[in-house]
């Protein structure tokens, strides 16, 4: 395939960025990626990204944590070393269940939260020793960068970007993959 051209437009305000995204989308250009120093409210909708599925994953992780807690407490407190809980030596899981509820709750939350964060990192292609993907260091401070595929209408795109309030426009060559 060789290399292809991309346009990097840099903004210094999130509201300007949002309206620019709408303008670029209206002109049927394809936005590759946007790098921002903080989450911009409504940006995903403006870019037309699919809704996140992390909530479903989180629910599943919660269910796993819930199950693990039940099996774990059953093994620890009932089977392996039967405990007399609260002076009620019934040695039955269901009769001692109220005392396990806090653990069920904690492990459900623990699994849902931790696995969700890990999933989010992996899905965002972030793992240890990975090189940063953002093309401009300023996007970690106070600038917003929009990467657009100009297809064959580079001149038009540059004009739109200037109108939209971009403070800097760069054209870069990138190995396509």
């Amino acid at each position, binding site marked *: 395939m060789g290399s292809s051209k991309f346009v990097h437009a840099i903004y210094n305000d999130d509201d300007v960025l949002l309206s620019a995204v709408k303008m670029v989308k209206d002109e049927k250009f394809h936005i590759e990626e946007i790098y921002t120093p903080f989450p911009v409210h409504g940006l995903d909708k403006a870019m037309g990204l699919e809704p996140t599925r992390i*909530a479903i994953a989180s*629910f599943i992780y919660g269910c796993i944590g819930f199950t693990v807690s039940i099996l774990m407490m059953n093994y620890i407190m009932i089977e392996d070393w039967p405990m007399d*809980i*609260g*002076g*009620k030596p019934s040695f039955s899981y269901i009769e001692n269940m*109220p*005392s396990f*509820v*806090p653990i069920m709750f904690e492990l459900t939350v623990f699994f849902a939260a931790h696995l969700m964060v890990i999933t989010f990192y992996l899905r965002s292609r972030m793992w240890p020793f990975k090189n940063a993907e953002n093309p401009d260091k300023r996007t970690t401070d106070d600038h917003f960068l929009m990467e657009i595929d100009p297809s064959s209408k580079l001149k038009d795109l540059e004009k739109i970007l200037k109108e939209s309030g971009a403070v800097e426009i760069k054209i870069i060559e990138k190995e396509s993959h």
Partner: protein
Amino acid sequence: MYTISNRLKIFSITLIVLGALGWGYSYVNSHKSLEEVKEILADESSHGGSHESVDHEVESVSNNHGDLSHDANEDKHAEHVMHQIHNRPYAALYVAAFFFMMISLGVLAFYAIQYASQAGWSPVLYRVMEAITYYLLPGALIVLAIAVIGDKHIFIWMDPEVVAHDELIQGKSSWLNKPWFIIRALIFIGGWCLYRYFSRKFSLAQDNNSGNKYFKLNFRISAVFLVFFIYTESMMSWDWIMSVDPHWFSTLFGWYLFASMIVSGITVIALITIYLKSKGLLDFVNDSHLHDLAKFMFGFSVFWTYLWFSQFMLIWYANIPEEVTYYVTRIEHYTIPFFGMIVMNFIFPFLVLINSDYKRLPWFIVMAGVVILIGHYVDIFVMIMPATVVDRWFFGLPEISALALFSGLFMLIVFYSLSKAPLLAKGNPYIKESENFHY
């Protein structure tokens, strides 16, 4: 402007009349003499259907140190059951009256929180909330009236004969005595309704005020009210609910009742909002407002469960006889409502409202809301009934008619109040933010 439709008026008046008739019938019907009660008991034991009466006999034998004849025991038991049968209409009326009062009070607290936190999302809903709190004054006075008239039929500590033989109640009699109970209740109701009166007045005055004078006044009185509320709400819960079992106490009971109150209140805000929106009267309320209300319904349902379980687990774990009897009675005689309410108040709303998209669908909110309201009615039912009628409970004519009576009254008063003011609090400084609120 909303005008109360004739259909709604007739519907609520019919509910009130039918409820009053049904309750009156069951009240008259409950005046069973000792002989009639004995007949009922004989009938029950011949059918072999009642294990409960056997339990009771065993209980009364041990209570009487075994030195009374079998006949005397039977008499005693029959008298016991007669009292329970007499108590039932009072208790049924009290549960329904308290439930609707509690909705109104919960909304008032929620409304005050909105003002005190200067919330930007909710001002479009203020008129709905104000209308619901209009029921507070009549509702709370009715609850007090039933408590005073019902007397020993609901509150056993109001019976001087019982107190004379009960050292524990005697020890609490400086707090649990009728005059002080009434004075306290009047202080609570007076404080709440004073806040509600001025807050509504300032809210209406702010509509035509160019500055923010009345909004600021409202902000201040709301903050003061919330302090007053959290103390008086706690005391009210001891007085009006917890004291039906005067031996038993729980230190987080006030919070527990507050959770019930606020989740039912928010549910009713959501239901009335959806109703008015379906009539095309609340165009400025969008999906995001409903979404936020549903989030609160979800969140406070979980909060309720947290408090319910905290109270239950500590008592269950410690297993101290005078504490644990409260749950023993409920689990033994009220198995279905007791565990059913956990399903209705926690599991169902949790699973139904957990999805973000579903919280925006009116019919989903209505479905979850109806179940939540039934669940919290059952919650109050399970608080009051075991102390008044023990195992002689049933969800029958007295309960249904009391519910009809107060739901009719509640609707009539709330929708009357809705028709008294424009539905948009247009002078509120946050109204623009609220109208443009989106998620």
